[in-house]
């Protein structure tokens, strides 16, 4: 009965001839454009609406950054509602809040007692929506069936639903014809959700809903938007890490035709010991982007570079030497007695892996549009979470209430974690306030690569010991990083009886979440280490991993979105990837195959990669086989796309990406110096496969990459005997093969 009682939080209404099931919210009561939502009660939060013409809309606040949520979410609703999923439209809502007790008086809106998830990132969108959206669909369907039963004078059990109709023998009533009555019925119990075996839509291949708009170049991104009377701004941000403007002269900039105003932008937060959100700089506001760029070029600025003037790559590497040698170690995880077991080991390996800073380099650079007036702040943003946009803006503009913000999130020209940071739109709001007009801020690629919140640089030092049978009986993993986020508990930590995971942290460049935060580099290090141990033991690296899972069984994995690792799920995807790759077959000279497996945010990934290394060190990735087990697969076509993209994204990072610093500033600031993979680096053969099961799903966006990088490195070793212990791979093979 508890579930049923929760339904009192729901609001069911017949608004303008439509059945609307919603959770009340307050955020756009006053500030929102009434025009855009004119058919709806302006006090709606998350909603499912079916109108008299059978049009079905869900109002939801999760944006799509290319991982396909805007396709998968309607599938969840359509499954329970029994409609063609293509008829379900998604209207992106502003941040959803409800009134709450407590300090600020607001909290995330809930549906049936659960908070509504409002961001894309952390592979959470599907996970957090899986139950809620199906519940909404089931609620609507139950109401429509009850309304039809009353209309026809029959029992509900005599009725079925099919593709938007309630069916009674040859009599078919469209949902649209029932909406008024359905809004008024009283359900006797909480509608039951379908069994997995009865799914007709979940588990079917569906192309991206936005694909046609994309192919036609329709304006669907923040950078394409405009507000009436809008100006464009470009900002000269201090290129030196944590530096500030000492002085500036805007005389020449103001003479550039089209330039309207030059505005000082102050660092947020002011305290330079804290990581920046907004860099210190000077904004040039002009009629169009080009004029603003020319104006920026004409600025004369003297920067204070004193804080990190000594920082360059050599210095940073020596800092890592120091961190390894005498950094303050924090033990994150320890079981058994590493020191005793290691001392007794039959064979030992001591090895370190390194990886550089990686930039997000989202295809759409950071961009934001804002119009700040006395009573209202209107914002168009390309961010991963509407809630953080509003909360962060409220910090910068404390004089405004929640209901004075109108936040619209557009489709994202990729996110990868970068667009959790609410910087471009905050800058736009600061510019708008200064100039009294709407302003769009576009970051150039140089701005983006110089001012990013990078994936941290790291060094991973392992000591491992084998017993006489080749089993790992002891391992010590020390992860030194420029960020305070670690995954020393990941596979194979719990498969090793005597294990100690330790960390040392020192921040230099600002860092932030980057596809599979922490897992992305832990996967590389830990799965390279396992591979080296397998070779040291003289055992097949695939069988070695499978045996580890078989012997240990399920293990704890107290990470984000997971509690434990199921051995059978890992073994299954390892076997799928190996089968698709033809693991064990005889390979031509110079070819090699590598394998890796890793869990990211509750999702299981395995990868097998085949490469060819020529005598001169030329590397060709021949084939990649990726297998993932995210639990219930909503859209296999979309999931496979994430395996393909995530795997190749990993290859791209591993092959060439490296943020370099010199003189306290980032010097790899466009695609001529920051090397990302093109189609020529992608294998011509690719197998992507998802496991089938009915376990509650996890998101697909991040899980493939952490297994892909070590699988590539392990394949290179198998092909030519060169072990990649430092990323990027760059020209290491050419150098190694020469000597």
């Amino acid at each position: 009965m508890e579930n049923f009682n929760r339904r009192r939080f729901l609001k069911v209404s017949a608004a303008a001839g439509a059945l609307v099931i919603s959770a009340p919210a307050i955020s756009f009561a006053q500030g929102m454009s009434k025009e855009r939502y004119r058919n709806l009660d302006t006090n709606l939060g998350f909603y499912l609406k079916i109108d008299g013409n059978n049009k079905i809309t869900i109002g939801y606040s999760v944006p799509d950054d290319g991982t396909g949520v805007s396709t998968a979410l309607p599938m969840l609703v359509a499954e329970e509602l029994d409609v063609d999923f293509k008829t379900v439209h998604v209207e992106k809502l502003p941040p959803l809040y409800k009134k709450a007790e407590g300090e600020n008086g607001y909290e995330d809106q809930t549906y049936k007692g659960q908070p509504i998830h409002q961001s894309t990132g952390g592979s959470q969108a599907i996970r957090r929506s899986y139950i809620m959206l199906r519940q909404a669909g089931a609620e609507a369907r139950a109401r429509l069936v009850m309304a039809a039963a009353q209309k026809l004078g029959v029992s509900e059990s005599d009725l079925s639903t099919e593709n938007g109709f309630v069916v009674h023998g040859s009599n078919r009533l469209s949902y649209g014809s029932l909406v008024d009555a359905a809004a008024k019925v009283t359900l006797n119990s909480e509608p039951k959700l379908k069994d997995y075996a009865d799914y007709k839509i979940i588990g079917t291949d569906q192309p991206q809903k936005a694909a046609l708009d994309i192919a036609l170049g329709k304006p669907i991104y923040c950078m394409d938007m405009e507000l009436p009377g809008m100006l464009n701004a470009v900002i000269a941000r201090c290129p030196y890490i944590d530096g500030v403007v000492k002085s500036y002269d805007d005389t020449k900039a103001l003479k550039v035709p089209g330039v309207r105003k030059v505005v000082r932008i102050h660092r947020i937060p002011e305290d330079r010991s804290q990581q920046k959100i907004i860099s210190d700089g000077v904004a040039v506001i002009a009629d169009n982007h080009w004029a603003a760029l020319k104006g920026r070029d004409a600025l004369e600025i003297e920067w204070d570079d004193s804080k990190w003037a000594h920082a360059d790559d050599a210095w940073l590497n020596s800092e890592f030497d120091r961190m390894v040698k005498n950094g303050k170690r924090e033990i994150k995880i320890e079981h058994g007695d590493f020191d005793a077991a290691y001392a007794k080991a039959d064979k030992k390996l001591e090895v370190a892996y390194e990886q550089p800073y990686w930039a997000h380099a989202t295809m759409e650079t950071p961009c934001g549009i804002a119009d700040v007036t006395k009573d209202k702040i209107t914002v168009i943003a390309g961010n991963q979470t509407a809630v953080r946009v509003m909360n962060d803006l409220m910090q910068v503009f404390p004089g405004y209430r929640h209901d004075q913000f109108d936040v619209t999130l557009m489709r994202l020209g990729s996110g990868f974690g970068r667009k959790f940071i609410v910087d471009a739109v905050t800058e736009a709001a600061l510019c708008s306030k200064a100039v009294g007009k709407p302003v769009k801020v576009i970051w150039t690629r140089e701005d983006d690569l110089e001012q990013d919140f990078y994936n941290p640089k790291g060094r991973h030092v392992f000591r491992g010991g084998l017993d006489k049978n080749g089993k790992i009986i002891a391992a010590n993993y020390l992860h030194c990083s420029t960020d305070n986020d670690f995954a020393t508990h990941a596979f194979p930590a719990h498969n090793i009886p005597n294990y100690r995971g330790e960390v040392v942290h020192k921040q230099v460049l600002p860092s932030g979440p980057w596809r599979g935060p922490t897992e992305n580099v832990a996967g590389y290090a830990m799965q390279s280490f396992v591979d080296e141990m397998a070779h040291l033991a003289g055992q097949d690296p695939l069988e070695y991993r499978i045996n580890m899972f078989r012997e240990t069984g399920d293990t704890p994995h107290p990470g984000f979105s997971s509690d434990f690792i199921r051995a059978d799920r890992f073994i299954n995807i390892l076997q799928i990837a190996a089968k698709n790759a033809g693991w064990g077959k005889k390979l031509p000279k110079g070819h090699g195959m590598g394998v890796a497996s890793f869990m990211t945010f509750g999702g299981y990934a395995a990868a097998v990669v085949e490469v060819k290394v020529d005598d001169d060190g030329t590397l060709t990735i021949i084939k990649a086989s990726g297998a993932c087990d995210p639990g219930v697969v909503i859209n296999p076509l979309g999931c496979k796309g994430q395996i393909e993209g995530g795997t190749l994204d990993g290859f791209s990072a591993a092959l060439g990406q490296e943020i370099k610093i010199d003189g306290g500033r980032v010097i790899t600031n466009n695609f001529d110096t920051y090397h990302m993979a093109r189609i020529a680096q992608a294998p011509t053969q690719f197998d992507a496969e998802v496991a089938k099961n009915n376990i509650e799903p996890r998101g697909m966006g991040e899980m493939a990459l952490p297994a892909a990088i070590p699988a590539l490195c392990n394949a290179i070793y198998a092909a030519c005997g060169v072990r990649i212990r430092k990323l990027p791979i760059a020209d290491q093979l050419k150098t190694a093969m020469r000597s």
Partner: protein
Amino acid sequence: MVKFTVNGISHTFNGDEDMPLLWYLRDEARLTGTKFGCGIAQCGACTVHIGGMAQRSCSVPMAAVEGENIITIEGLEHSDRLHAVQRAWLEEDVAQCGFCQSGQIMAIASFLKDFPNPSDKDIDENHTNLCRCATYVRMRAAIHKAAAYLQEEI
């Protein structure tokens, strides 16, 4: 003054002739399907056709388009029929975030004029547009499919 056509319509431009075509298309003509990605002709997100050839519009100044016929992604389909490359892109479900894809499609529509039946090697050597979502697996399949469609259309 610079005179040219965009998607068959005459345009004249009286402003700063240093301005790249990209920013004219986006800010003045309001044709935002052509995207900004790097500003230095490295990524190809801004690819348009000038005189039938793929060009990276971020690095083409307005002074250089006098008398030219320019086609953008918005003008690629003909008589309400999708271009073969667009069709192949939809059928292979290539796009993820989609931001680079109009540039990819424009680049391939031009590439297939020179390589009507391309090998994988032809693709690797000539197609250099960057896709941050790394949709290269499906992109390659779509390129081959589009080539086959164009052969049928001849």
